[in-house]
C-alpha cells in the first residue's frame, strides 16, 4: 500500500533543499519558486515551479537540479511542471530567504506594489528606503532599475561607496 502522504513529505523535504542557480544562497522554497510537490500514479513525484520573470533563463537548470536531487534520494520517477498562475511575487520570498539575501550582501525586496485598477505611470526614479547591506547606511542611490538578472536592481552606497544589488518588488 502506497503511503502517498509520507512519500510526498519525504519528496518535499528533498525538493526544498534545492537552491536557485543564480542566487545559490536561496533555496527554491525560500525564493517562492517551488509551488507544490505531489505524488501521482504509482509514486511519481510531480514538482511544480513558477518562473520569477517570463524570460527567466534558470528554469531548465532548476528543473534539472530538482530531478537529480530527487533521483539521488531514491525517487525513480520525477516530473517537473510549470505553474504559470498565480504569477510569482517577491512577497513570496520567506523571512529566512530575506535573511540569507542580506547575509550574502543583497538587499531584500520590500512589499510588492498593490495593483487596483490601471497601473499608474511613474516618471520619477523609484523611491525605496533601503540600507546598504554592507555598512547599514541609509545613504544609497539607485544606479539602474535593471541588473545582472531580471529580478535585481543596481544600487550604490554613498557612504561606503560599494555597489550592491536589490531584489526588485513585483
Amino acid at each position, binding site marked *: 500500500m502506497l503511503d502517498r502522504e509520507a512519500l510526498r513529505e519525504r519528496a518535499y523535504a528533498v525538493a526544498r533543499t534545492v537552491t536557485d542557480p543564480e542566487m545559490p544562497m536561496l533555496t527554491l522554497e525560500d525564493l517562492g519558486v517551488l509551488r507544490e510537490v505531489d505524488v501521482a500514479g504509482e509514486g511519481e513525484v510531480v514538482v511544480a515551479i513558477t518562473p520569477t520573470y*517570463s*524570460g527567466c533563463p534558470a528554469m531548465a537548470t532548476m528543473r534539472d537540479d530538482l530531478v537529480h536531487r530527487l533521483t539521488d534520494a531514491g525517487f525513480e520517477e520525477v516530473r517537473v511542471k*510549470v505553474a*504559470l*498562475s*498565480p504569477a510569482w511575487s517577491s512577497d513570496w520570498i520567506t523571512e529566512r530567504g530575506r535573511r540569507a539575501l542580506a547575509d550574502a550582501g543583497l538587499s531584500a525586496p520590500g512589499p510588492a506594489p498593490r*495593483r487596483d485598477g490601471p497601473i499608474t505611470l511613474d*516618471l520619477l526614479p523609484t523611491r525605496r528606503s533601503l540600507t546598504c547591506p554592507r555598512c547599514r547606511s541609509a545613504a544609497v542611490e539607485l544606479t539602474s532599475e*535593471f541588473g545582472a538578472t531580471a529580478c535585481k536592481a543596481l544600487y550604490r552606497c554613498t557612504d561606503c561607496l560599494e555597489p550592491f544589488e536589490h531584489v526588485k518588488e513585483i
Partner: protein
Amino acid sequence: MTNPTDPAHAPSHPAPDPNDAHGSIFDGLLGSDSSQWAFGTDFEDPLAGVDTTIPDGVDPGDLAAYCLMLADDALVASHRLSEWCSRAPDLEEDIALANVALDLLGQARLLLARAAAADATVVPALPEGSPVPPEDALAFFREAGDFRNVRLTEVPNGDFAHTIARLLVLSCARLALFERLATSRDSVLAAVAAKGVKELAYHRDYAGRWFLTLAQGTDESRGRLLAALDEIWPLHAELFATHPVERAVADAGVGVDPATTAAEVDVVLEQVFAMSGVERPGRAPLAGVHGRTGRDGLHTEALSRLLAEMQVVARAHPSGRW
C-alpha cells in the same frame, strides 16, 4: 624534419582530444553532469504541465493567430532591443535594454508555445527527427509574410532616442492590453498576461523616464527625441486598429480588442508628453497595402532583414542540437 617530442616544436596549447584516456581540459567545467551546463539545456516545453485546453466557443485557428500576433510583437521588439547589446550609451542602459528584451522574449516563447498548442497546423514542417521545439520552429522557420507583428516593432533601431520613443509607445499599448487580457477565458493567455503586466510596468516607467530626461536634457537630446517621435508616429495607429481575428477572440472572451485600450493609452502618453513639454505629433498613419498591415503579414522591408539575421543559424541546422 621536426622531432614531435621536441618541446620547441610542440604546440603550446594542444587541441583537446575528447577520446583521450586522460580526458580533456574542459572536463572540469561540466562537473560530472553535462546538464549542469547552463547554456546547453532548456525546458523542452515551456508550458509543461499547463492546461492548454481551448475554452468553449473559440476557434482554434483564431486563437493560434491571435497568440502569434501577441508573440510576434514581443519577439520582434525583443530582437531589436537585443541589437543594443554592447552598443548602448553606457553599461547600465545596455543591461536595462537587454533585461527588457529578455522579458519580451519570455513572453514571446510562452505565446508561441500557446499558438502551437492551440493549432499545430501553424507550425512550419521540419525534417523528420528534428529536435526543434514548436515555439522555435515558429520563431525561426516562418517567412516574413507569416509574421503578424505590428510594423512599429520591426523598423530599425535608429539612435537611443528612437528606441526610447518606440519602447514608450509599445509598452504603454502592451501594458493596457495585458491588464485586460489577464481576465481572458483562456487560462494560458490570462497567466501570461498577469505575469507580463508586472514586467511591462517596469518597461513603461523606464521608457517614460528616459523620454522625459531626453526631452528636458540638452538641445541635442531634445532635437533627437522630437525627430524620433515624429518618425515613429505614423506607425502608432496600427497598434489600435482591430483585426478581424482580434475582434473574433475578443467576442469569444479570450482576447482583447486593441481599440478598447486606445483612450487609456492616449491619456498615459499625454501625461508623458505634458511633463516633457512635447507636442503630440500630428503625422498621419502609414497606410497599408490594399488595407493589409502587419497583423495581416504585410511588413516593411526591415522585417525580412531582421529575420535573415535572427533565423540564419537555426535554418542552417534544422536538425541541430544546442
